[in-house]
């Protein structure tokens, strides 16, 4: 397949050209950048058919690139979100410094993610995985804030994961003598039980790091909020999905074949559930929209992990559907935050309020994103959540259902905070000058909002490819008749009739809308922050009276005991201990020539003493 070579040549060449085009003019750079992302996207979806492959060899290792249904599904996320985020980036990066650097790493990230999903052998998979890691690392440190802590934490966790994966890869190679994923899957059945257990663990370690699963998630909040928002939408939307992609492959092809009694799936599902719950709690606590969304990403990935690790067909579908939805709504929400950051200069709820009239389109996108995130019909998030609950109940995971239900209910709190904090509430004079974001930023957001609405009504658009992908991985298709025409008005899942549920929820919603509008129309009085009665005290000028300050205090007080233990502290303690050890080792080199001479003598003596053991 020549198209593959052309696509990757365009990505690589375009990335380098875009970098240097900044010296000419910024318009040329923008156009080159867009072309570098959009042309390969077009080529991929028009020129590459499912089932095509390209074998070649490098350093005596035979490699294979190809597209199957499952990879195609994820390439949809990568390239779809990649293209929209690219358009958005052009607006977002206008007037910022280091544009060439941003564009280069953006293109490399998209390229490496596409490479991951088309890799049919472990070596190219690993190469693209590492390129993805360092290009995203370079984006995390883009702003230059706290690079030594946040950036290195991200890279160290990624590297630990990647090296675990590399270890698994070479172990597999020493058994099978090939690097093809296909051969690994086939040989897996004949391996010893010890290897059968360790290989999935090593692989899952790598994927769990990227999917920000507890307790390996500590890099995520810092990294997500530190990267430029135009990239974070891709980072959280698509890059974290690479972890899910790998997890699904390993779970389906390996863990499914493990003997009964090894509680792989249970452990993973519970970790996912805990991730969801804790991520949600931490998200509620945040006052910064970037941090809030970062924790929310961690939480949402928790749901996805629960879905794919339960592993029944319905759960798998729920997980993957949520993955697509998460790419859409979290991509949108990060774009929204980026737009607000660009227009107002801050992303703190306690500072910005009342933007609904100033940025109506951004509000629309945010609203769609929030509805989808919270899992309220009629948007796609509801479908995914519903399937997830149903799959958990049908597979007898009642405790997990409670945990998931708790966290998705608690998620309403931060959803509300996000929407209300930024867009509703009193309008402050300080933000009177704010205007709507430029069209290049608004159009991708609104488009994604529309996609979410469409997917909510016609989930079959995504469920069908997911179904094909799962069949590729060896699932027996038992729901086919439902996905083909699946829209929400059908009865599906375990033959649950969704229609009445949908209608009653919409009915309640419309009733309340009318009620609120009617009430509001009668007694509207515009107030500002200072327009309050406070027991005769006049608030000081510099006092922050925005309603978002201490928004969820009673709730946070209630859950404080759960949140007291932070994984981060343990890791920091461990790292400090290591630094102490390194310092001790450094002191072995005293700088004194006599000591060094003594070392030589000691070395000879020790080796002579143990010569019978050694030689």
């Amino acid at each position, binding site marked *: 397949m020549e198209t593959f070579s052309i696509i990757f040549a365009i990505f690589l060449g375009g990335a380098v050209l875009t970098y240097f085009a900044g010296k000419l003019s910024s318009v040329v750079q923008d156009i080159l950048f867009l072309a570098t992302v959009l042309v390969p996207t077009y080529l991929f979806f028009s020129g590459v058919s499912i089932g095509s492959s390209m074998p070649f060899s490098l350093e005596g290792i035979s490699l294979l690139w190809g597209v199957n249904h499952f990879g195609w599904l994820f390439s949809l996320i990568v390239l779809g979100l990649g293209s929209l985020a690219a358009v958005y980036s052009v607006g977002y990066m206008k007037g910022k410094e280091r544009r060439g650097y941003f564009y280069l790493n953006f293109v490399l990230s998209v390229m490496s993610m596409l490479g991951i999903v088309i890799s049919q052998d472990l070596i190219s998979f690993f190469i693209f995985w590492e390129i993805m890691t360092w290009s995203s690392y370079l984006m995390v440190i883009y702003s230059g804030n706290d690079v030594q802590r946040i950036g*290195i934490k991200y890279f*160290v966790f990624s590297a630990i994961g990647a090296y675990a994966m590399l270890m698994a890869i070479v*172990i597999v190679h020493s058994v099978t003598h090939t690097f093809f994923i296909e051969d690994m899957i086939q040989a897996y059945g004949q391996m010893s039980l010890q290897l059968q257990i360790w290989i999935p663990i090593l692989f899952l370690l790598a994927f769990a790091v990227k999917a920000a699963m507890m307790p390996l998630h500590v890099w995520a909040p810092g990294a997500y909020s530190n990267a430029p928002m135009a990239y974070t939408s891709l980072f959280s939307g698509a890059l974290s999905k690479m972890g899910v992609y790998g997890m699904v492959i390993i779970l389906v092809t390996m863990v499914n074949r493990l003997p009964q009694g090894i509680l792989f799936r249970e452990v993973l599902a519970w970790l996912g559930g805990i991730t969801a719950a804790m991520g949600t709690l931490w998200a509620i606590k945040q006052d910064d929209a970037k941090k809030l969304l970062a924790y929310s990403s961690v939480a949402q990935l928790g749901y996805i992990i629960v879905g794919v690790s339960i592993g029944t067909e319905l759960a798998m579908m729920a997980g993957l559907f949520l993955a697509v939805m998460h790419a859409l709504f979290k991509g949108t929400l990060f774009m929204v935050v980026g737009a607000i950051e660009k227009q107002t200069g801050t992303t703190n709820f306690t500072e910005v309020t009342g933007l609904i009239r100033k940025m109506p389109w951004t509000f629309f996108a945010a609203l769609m994103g929030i509805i989808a995130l919270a899992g309220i019909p009629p948007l796609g998030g509801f479908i995914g959540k519903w399937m997830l609950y149903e799959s958990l109940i049908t597979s007898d995971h009642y405790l997990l259902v409670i945990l998931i239900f708790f966290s998705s209910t608690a998620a309403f709190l931060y959803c509300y905070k996000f929407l209300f904090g930024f867009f509703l509430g009193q309008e402050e004079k300080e933000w009177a000058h704010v205007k709507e974001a430029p069209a290049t930023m608004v159009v991708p957001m609104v488009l994604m909002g529309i996609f979410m609405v469409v997917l909510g009504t016609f989930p079959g658009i995504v469920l069908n490819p997911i179904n094909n992908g799962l069949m590729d991985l060896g699932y027996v298709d038992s729901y086919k008749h439902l996905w083909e025409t699946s829209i929400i008005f059908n009865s599906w899942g375990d033959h649950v009739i969704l229609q009445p549920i949908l209608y009653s929820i919409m009915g309640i919603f419309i009733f309340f809308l009318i009620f609120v509008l009617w009430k509001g129309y009668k007694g509207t009085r515009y107030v500002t922050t200072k327009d309050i009665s406070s027991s005769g005290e006049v608030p000081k000028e510099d006092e922050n009276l925005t309603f978002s300050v201490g928004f969820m205090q009673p709730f946070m007080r209630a859950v404080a005991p759960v949140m007291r233990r932070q994984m981060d502290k343990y890791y920091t303690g461990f790292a400090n201990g290591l630094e102490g050890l390194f310092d001790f080792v450094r002191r072995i080199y005293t700088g004194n020539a006599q000591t060094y001479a003594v070392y030589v003598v000691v070395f000879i003596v020790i*080796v002579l003493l143990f010569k019978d053991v050694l030689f």
Partner: protein
Amino acid sequence: MVGTPVLFVAIPLLAAFLIPLLGMIWKELVRIVPGLVLIYLMVLSVNLLNHVLVNGPIVEVIAGWAPPFGINLVFSAFSGFLVTLMVFLGLIVWIYSYRFKRNVGFEPAKKYFLLLMMLVTGAVGIVLTGDIFNMFVFIEITGISGYALTAFYTGRDSAEASFKYLMLGSIASTLLLLAIMILYSQLGTLNMAEIATKIHTVKPAYKVISLILFITALGIEAEIFPLNGWAPDAYAEAPGPVGAAFAGIVVKASVYAIIRYIYTIFDISGAYDFLIIIGMVTLIIAEFAAIRQEKLKRMLAYSSIGQMGLVLVAFGFGTKEGVFAALFLMLNHAIIKSLLFLSGSYLVYNSKDKTIAEVNGMHKFLPITSFLFALGAFAIVGLPPFAGFWSKLSVLTAAADSHMLFVMSLILMVSVVELVYYLRVVNRIYFFKKEESVEAKKPTFNALIAMLVLGALILVIGFYPDVITGVIHKASADLMDKTKYINDVLSIKQ
């Protein structure tokens, strides 16, 4: 035939002696002649290597005395590969320092280039010779020029570093001579091939003790822990290109010597495991020490020591994959670490203490140098798609094939440590505010060329490793085939 292996020793040695005389004719010749010599040797070594890869090794007999009586030079795929690598690095160092040393005046420049020629002579001689006493002589030549180059900046610190190097170097010579004496007293021959055929007749105690002495002596030069006390000081105090030459040429030659003893001359199987043990200890200690360093070149020195430890581990697997991995690693390390030393020494050019903190924000003033340093850092920690990845992959594959899972996991854990300290420096270059007191020094044109060549090589090998792996495969097959080496040398009659 375009030339014979003896030219590799004769020409640079001759040039080294002629340099002071030529300097009397025209001062610029001091700078030009070494370059011409190295270019000639480069052409010669590439030609010979091509010849050897097709037609088998060339055994050169000196002064008409056939082995085992005379000294012979062996240019095989294995030694040829290393010679080519060393001459190439010598050439890079020459390009880099052509104008680098112009400011220092004529006298120091004369000494510098003279010593560089001696260093190349010695290192190449170590690799080519087929005689253990001759190897001792070459090790001395390398060592002496190394001591002098360390003290090039005639300051207090460089004198101290040089003294440490000299002191440990003399211990090494003594031990080496002792080891040679033991072997000679038992076998009555100094020819490597001859010793290899007779080594089974030596009593085990003598054999083991002489091996231990050999490893200790050569381990001092090859920076094995705990014998490598001299190395961090020497690297830190010597000029940047000399650091590159140490990492790329001197240490490689010493590692070659160890490998030649263990693979060809001795028949002690426990030596392989011993290599893994000392290699791992060296790797771990060096990388741990590197992370807490305050001076840039010291950090690079420890990293270099660690990489050499990894090379020894890979040799210790004793399989064909292991040797391949080790040679690949040596090649990549020579290229990448040289690039790091060359670019790093510009990053701290004007700073007084050469600390890591003083590279802050240098990218605005030295964009290309900073970029190349970052490239080198990414490559040496083994991130794809750069050169270092392939060698790291082959080391790990070799480890897995030898069922050394514990060793493998240790290597990977240490790699994380390595990653951290390199990234910290790169982050400083790009994201920290520059110190006011430090003034950036623009690299000279020729230094830039030298660094760009190395940078390009990293990318070429990274994207298309096949350019070099064919040669390395043949070189590793050549080292593994002990009987062929013995036959090739001993069948020469003259």
